[in-house]
């Protein structure tokens, strides 16, 4: 699996296709997160943006090989493993992006609630921010995995479904991403840190289920 991950990551990095989603995310964070803003607000904003970006990165990884090269890898490692490696590589890159964004937000934000009266400790805030980012990355990975090959082959449908599902995952009450982000933003008003542990656990389960479905050999034509 290590070799497969290395191969998929090298493909993504060298192809420079990662530039578009990463630059878009950088712009999104750059516009929304300013120096000296309340830390929990900014963490919530940065986490929310990760969801569609992860879906995009995952789909880049899944579709970055020409069919012949994919068949060669599938024969060597088995189709499910090869597909899982692509999903994991995209998710891993998005995870790194999330960690970097969280670190930047922690560095430049004001460690206080929205009204500026209550101090917010950086360590619990950072932990909550990382967990929220993880929720969004995992849900984005699930959306990315479900809205592309091998479940959706047509590019247009795939794009429409990804945009729609990402939006839905962010705004539907009760979705782990929505719960985690809302927890950060509402916590910011009172200066309390809610650790989104339960949403994280649900997001892990959802992402694992999506990956298991997308890697079913019956769907994979290599």
């Amino acid at each position, binding site marked *: 699996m290590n070799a497969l991950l290395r191969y998929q990551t090298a493909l993504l990095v060298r192809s420079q296709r990662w530039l578009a989603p990463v630059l878009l995310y950088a712009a999104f964070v750059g516009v929304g997160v300013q120096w000296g803003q309340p830390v929990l607000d900014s963490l919530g904003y940065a986490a929310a943006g990760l969801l569609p970006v992860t879906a995009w990165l995952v789909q880049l990884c899944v579709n970055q090989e020409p069919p012949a090269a994919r068949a*060669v890898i*599938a024969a*060597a490692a088995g189709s499910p493993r090869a597909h899982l490696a692509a999903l994991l590589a995209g998710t891993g890159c998005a995870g790194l992006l999330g960690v970097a964004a969280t670190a930047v937000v922690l560095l430049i934000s004001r460690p206080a609630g929205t009204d500026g009266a209550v101090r917010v400790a950086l360590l619990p805030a950072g932990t909550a921010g990382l967990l929220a980012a993880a929720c969004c990355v995992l849900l984005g990975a699930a959306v990315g995995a479900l809205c592309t090959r091998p479940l959706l082959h047509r590019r247009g449908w795939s794009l429409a479904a990804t945009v729609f599902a990402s939006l839905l995952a962010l705004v539907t009450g009760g979705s782990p991403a929505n719960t985690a982000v809302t927890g950060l933003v509402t916590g910011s008003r009172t200066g309390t840190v809610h650790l989104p542990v339960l949403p994280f656990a649900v997001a892990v389960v959802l992402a694992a289920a999506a990956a298991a479905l997308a890697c079913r050999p019956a769907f*994979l034509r290599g």
Partner: protein
Amino acid sequence: MGRRYGLGGPWVLRGVDIDLPAHTLIRIEGANGTGKSTLLRLLAGIDSPTQGRITGQRPRTAYVPERFSAALPFTAAGYLVHLGRIHGLRTPEAADRAQSWLARFGAADHARTPLPELSKGTSQKVAVAQAFLAEPELLILDEAWTGLDTAARDELDRAVAERVAAGATVVFVDHDPRRLAESVDTVFRIERNGLRTASGARTAQTGPRVRIEAEGPPGAALPAGLPGAPEHTPTADGGVRFTVAATHSDALLCALLTARPPWHIRQLAAAPGPVQDPAADGPAHRTPTPEAP
């Protein structure tokens, strides 16, 4: 097993039952669009059957697609090292083998060329080299010879013979009916979505042949399962004269020299003329003919 695409699509293959024993070279025939490639993809584990299943432990598998013009952001050698690692090799070993296989197919000069800049033929050489890197137990060749130059085609024939001699199963599709004709063990033909055996034994010997005179250790029998199933006749002075298709000569020499105890090679020459009766070719056959020195 059977395979169809889509929920209610027509069956591409149905009721296919195929066994892949070790030490076997299998050819799949069939008209265009009959499902040869689908069958190969099922055997390689790239695709999975809609109906039925593939049993047995998954062997170390390598697959060579017909047209491999991979626009991947790697150099030829870099790509092969990645593939070698995926096959389970360590990086230095993968790099070594990548170099030697590229050299074998005459593409050593292109090791540092990015894949998108390679010619169609050289890309195909990379695809072929990829398959042999990890000494696969199951090798699937989907018209792998297409696009290769003559030297590389011959080299691929020899490499395939070596793999079979080493115990692998090789399944191939090729448009040239003479491809490896002298060494194919089983020919299957796809007809009306099913598979039937087209012929069991080796077909007529057509290509060039090589004569090898060797001397075994005193009292030793012939090593079992010699590559290319050579004809062998005892010589007057206690040696054995083997006649084998040129494709298999390297593999046969290797088998003789590495047998335990090893054989001694006395003489090596191109065999004169074609052989008389193809039916007389078999490992158990022995013709006592008087030998001239």
